[in-house]
């Protein structure tokens, strides 16, 4: 049965501010964060049946909103990722550049963009949200060993692709820019 207007209003009163806080911390601005919150609640309404069965409404909405935010981050990254070439300088390079200097942040973003959606979620919950491996596993719906594997793979890829300076940029990215 679909959530009634009163039920939606109660959920909004209780959770919308917290979700806005969460989305803003990822997206960095109110407009995009508000849009992510609205979209999260739209999905709550759309999935009313399964939502009613959740023991923790926030946990369910947390994951939905995280994925929406990560998609937004990916789309933003696309602005720089997609514009990789001049009209007459084709083909477009497919490998990450390995030069030192100012492209470190772009490379870190590119790494995250290139990670598969599940790995992005695992990295996000573990390093950004400070979740334990068990919490991350519960959120994503995978086992703890799979969480370990995803993290190891991501970090190995990062170490191979990034110079020392870029590795520092990775830390900076997680600390403030994402």
């Amino acid at each position, binding site marked *: 049965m*679909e959530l009634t*207007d009163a039920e*939606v*209003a109660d959920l*909004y*009163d*209780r*959770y*919308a*501010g*917290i*979700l*806005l*806080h*969460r989305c803003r911390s990822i997206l960095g601005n109110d*407009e995009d964060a*508000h*849009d992510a919150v*609205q*979209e999260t*609640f*739209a*999905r709550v*309404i*759309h999935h009313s049946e399964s939502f009613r069965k959740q023991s*923790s409404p*926030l*946990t369910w909405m*947390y994951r939905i909103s995280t994925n929406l935010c990560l*998609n937004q981050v990916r*789309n*933003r990254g*696309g*602005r*720089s*990722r*997609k*514009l*990789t*070439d*001049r*009209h007459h300088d*084709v*083909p*477009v390079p497919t490998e990450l550049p390995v030069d030192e200097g100012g492209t470190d942040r772009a490379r870190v973003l590119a790494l995250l963009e290139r990670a598969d959606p599940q790995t992005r979620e695992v990295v996000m*919950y*573990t*390093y*950004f*949200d*400070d*979740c*334990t*491996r*068990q*919490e991350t596993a519960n*959120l994503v719906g995978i086992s703890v060993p799979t969480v370990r594997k995803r*993290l190891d793979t991501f970090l190995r890829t990062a170490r191979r692709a990034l110079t020392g300076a870029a590795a520092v940029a990775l*830390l900076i990215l*997680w600390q403030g820019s994402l």
Partner: protein
Amino acid sequence: MDLQINEGDRPSRLQLYRYAAGELEGEERAAVEAHLSTDDEARAFVDSARATRPAPLDLPDLRDRAARQHHAPPKGANRSWAAFLGALVVAAAALFAFLGLPGVEPDGHDIRFRASDGLQLYHLSDRTLERYDGRLLGEGDVIGFKVRSVDHDRVVVLSVDSRGTVSVFHPTDGEAGSPLTEDGLVALPGSVVLDDAPGPEVFVAVFDADVPAAQAEARRAWQSGGLSGVLEWATSGGDRAAEVLERRP
């Protein structure tokens, strides 16, 4: 945040949020409160989350968005006539699909490729960019843009795909539109490697606008009528131009 993984010796952000929302009880709640009594940063985080005020609830917008999740009319009382019309439209759309007319939305708007003068798409073919002619393109294909500038100073080029995702291509950074230093047909630097977004995709040039305003207008247009709404918005003003890119299924 650092790269030390939480081994369970402190509450995660999710736990702090759940505490702030009043979802925790018993031992879980006590454990978080014990931690907050010794960690000012965590305490400030919880206070900040609790103090965050969202925009006022807009139920019609939420219901509308929810309805679009499955492309069906919103549920409500006395919808039998609407349901009949909806079924009719779906049947018509199915017929169009059967007849091989891609890009026709159920509301009857034609969102197939149409040539535009103000914004022109080019696609990579044999190492040169050729004028886009409406062929189906997909992930990995490369496109570029030209815009027709007439007394315009700046341009934002963005796209809206069939999921409503708004992507900005020009400017490549910052919020001000890309500068246009001359009139006439201007090639914008750079090319775009298409991702796997579902099509059709409407590309829009918004002249003399900044990025946030152009994005906001595009989102409003999408909310008002999907891709047809975007196309209507993009082609209804002298300071905008649009071209539709058709995607491989």
